[in-house]
C-alpha cells in the first residue's frame, strides 16, 4: 500500500501538478489546493487502471473523493478486485 501511494503521488507530481515545487504527500489536498485541475482526473483514473488494474466507477470518481492520495487509496481498496492486497 505504501508503495502504491508513493507511485500515485509521484505520478501526480510529475504529470499533473501545476507546481513542481510543491511536494505531494499522502494527505496533500492537491485538487482543493489548486495544484491539479479537474480535467486531469481522467489521466489519474487511467493511470490507476493501467498501473494497478483497478477501475474506480464513475459515480465514485469525483474530485472531492480523489482530493488526496490517501483518499484515492481508500477508493482503490473499496473497488479493487483484491481489496486489501492493493
Amino acid at each position, binding site marked *: 500500500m505504501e508503495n502504491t501511494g508513493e507511485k500515485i503521488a509521484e505520478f501526480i507530481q510529475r504529470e499533473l501538478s*501545476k507546481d513542481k515545487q510543491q511536494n505531494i504527500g499522502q494527505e496533500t489536498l492537491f485538487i482543493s489546493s489548486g495544484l491539479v485541475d*479537474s*480535467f486531469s482526473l481522467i489521466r489519474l483514473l487511467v493511470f490507476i487502471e493501467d498501473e494497478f488494474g483497478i477501475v474506480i466507477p*464513475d459515480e465514485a470518481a469525483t*474530485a472531492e473523493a480523489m482530493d488526496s492520495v490517501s483518499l484515492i487509496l481508500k477508493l482503490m481498496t473499496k473497488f479493487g478486485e483484491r481489496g486489501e492486497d492493493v
Partner: protein
Amino acid sequence: MSETLRDVLLDHYRRHPERLFVRCLLTDGTAVSISYADLVSRGSQFASEFRGYLANNGDIVVIILPHCPDLFCTFFGAVLGGQVPSILSVPSFKLNSDHYRDELQALLKRIDARVLVTDSATASFLGMVKPRLGKAWVLLADKLPVSAAPIPDPSIGPGDLVLLQHSSGSTGLKKGVALSNRAVIRQIRDYAPTLSLGTEDQIVSWLPLYHDMGLIACTVLPAVVGIPVTALSPLHWVTNPASMLQAISRYRSTAAWMPNFAYEFLASRIRPSQLGDVRLDSMRAWINCAEPTMAVSHRRFLDQYAKFGVRPETLWTCYAMAETVFAVSQSSDAVSPKVERIDRERFQMGNVAIPVDGEQIPSLEMMSAGPLIPGVEVKVVDKDLNPLNERRVGEIAIRSASLFSGYFLDPSSTAKVLRDEWFYSGDMGYLTDGHLFITGRKKDLIIIAGKNYYPQDIERIVCSIPGIYPGRSVALGLDDPAIGTQRLIVLAEVREKSLVDDPRLGAAVRKTLAGELDCVIDDLRLLPHMWLLKTSSGKIARAPNLKRYLESFRPDTLQ
C-alpha cells in the same frame, strides 16, 4: 403565433404531452425521462410553491441545483408561473463556503431575488440553516411537497422578462443579462432553421445550465422546437468524457454544442477500448462555440473519430453570447466554416487580415464562425466606432431582433455597451466573403475550457494575500493550441525579496484562488517589486506584461 416561452411550452404539452423533453442521465447510469406532461406537472408544483413567497409576476427565482431532473423542472416551473428564473453554478467543494455564501447573499440583494431554490446538500455545504438568506427565502427542491398543482395562469406578455442569464465573475462583476420572451422566441425562430432542426433531431449535452450554451442551445431551444435532449452531468463528463459518445451511440443523437477545448479533450483523453462499437454517424452537427475555435482541434477530433462515423461536414462553428440570447453567426452543412491563413505581422501590427499562401510568410490559421444568422446585422468598428471595411480587424457590434433588454438593474453597465440599438460586444474580428471571423477580445476576459474569468477578479484576490504587493499583479490568458483553450498565467510582485519564488506563498496563492474562484493557475510567477510594466497612465497593462512574460520565461517552461 405563440409569443411567450410559457405559451410555447403549453402548446407542446397540449399537442403531445407524452413527447420526451429531456432524458436526464444520472451518474449511476440510470436515465430519468421527462415528458412535456411531466415537465408541466412538476413545474406547476414548483410554480405554486414559489408563488407562496413571491409578490409579483416577474419576481426573480435563483436556482442552484446540481444536474438532476428538478433542475429542468424548477427552471420551467418558474417560466410557467410568470417568475423569472436565473440558474447559478453549484458551488464546487473546493470553494470557501463562507465566502461563496456571502457573495451569493450580496448578489441576491443586488437583483432583489425573493426565492433561492437549492437542495439539502448544497444548503448544508453553505451552512444555510435559516429559512432565509438575506431577504430571499431558501427553498429545498428535494424537500418540497409533491402534491398536484394546477397549471398557473399568470398575465405575462412577449415584452416581459423570461430569464436572467448571469455572466461569470464575482458579485461586483457578475451581470444579469435580462432576456424578454420576445427576444428568446425570436432568436430560436431565427436560429433553428439555420441548423435545419427537425423532429427527427435529438440533442446531446453535458453543458452546465448556468452557461448560455447549456441553457439556451441545449435546453430552451429544444423546448421551443419540441425535440428531445439527452443531458449528462458536467461533472460526470469531465471524469468520463466517453459517456457522451456512448450516449450519442445509444440514443442516436444528432446535434451537440461544445467549447473548443472539448474537441481536444475528447480526442486525447479517451482510449479506443472505452468506445467498443460506439457509432457516431447519427451526428449531423458538432457545433464549436463559446471560446475561440481552432481548425487544428477539428482536425485532431476528426483524426480520432472518423473511424467511428464522424464526418468532416458535420463540424460546424458558431459565435454566440448571452446578450443576443445566443447565436450571432453559424456555419452548417450548407456553408462550412471557412479556414484561411493570414499574414501574422500585418494582423498584429496593422489590424488587417490578409490571406497568404504557402509557408514563406509567418502566418496564423483562422477559422470562421460562419455567416450571420437571419435577423442579425454585424458591423466591425474602429476605436472611434467608425465602420471598417472587409478584412479590417475591429470591435464587433451587433444589431439583432433578439437583443437583450439590458443588464438587470444595472443601467450604467448597459449604457456602456448598448448604443443606438447596437450592442458593442468587446470581441474583435473581421468580415469577409459573408463569413465572420473572431480574432480575440478587446476586453481582457480569460476563457478556460469554456468558462469565463475576469482578470480583475483574479488580480484582486491575489493582491489580498499577505506577501503580495497590493495592486501589482496581473492575470493573463495564453492561447495553447495543444489543449484547445487558454492557460492561466498569474504574475505577482512580492513585498520582500525573500518572497520571490517562495513556495509557501505560491501555495497560498493557489489555494486562495481555488477556494474563491474555483480556478487553477497554470503558471504562477512571484516576482520582485517593479518587475511588471506600467503604462504611461500608471496602469498595469496586460498586453505588455504578456509580451515580457513570453520573452522572460518562454511558453515551454509552462508546467
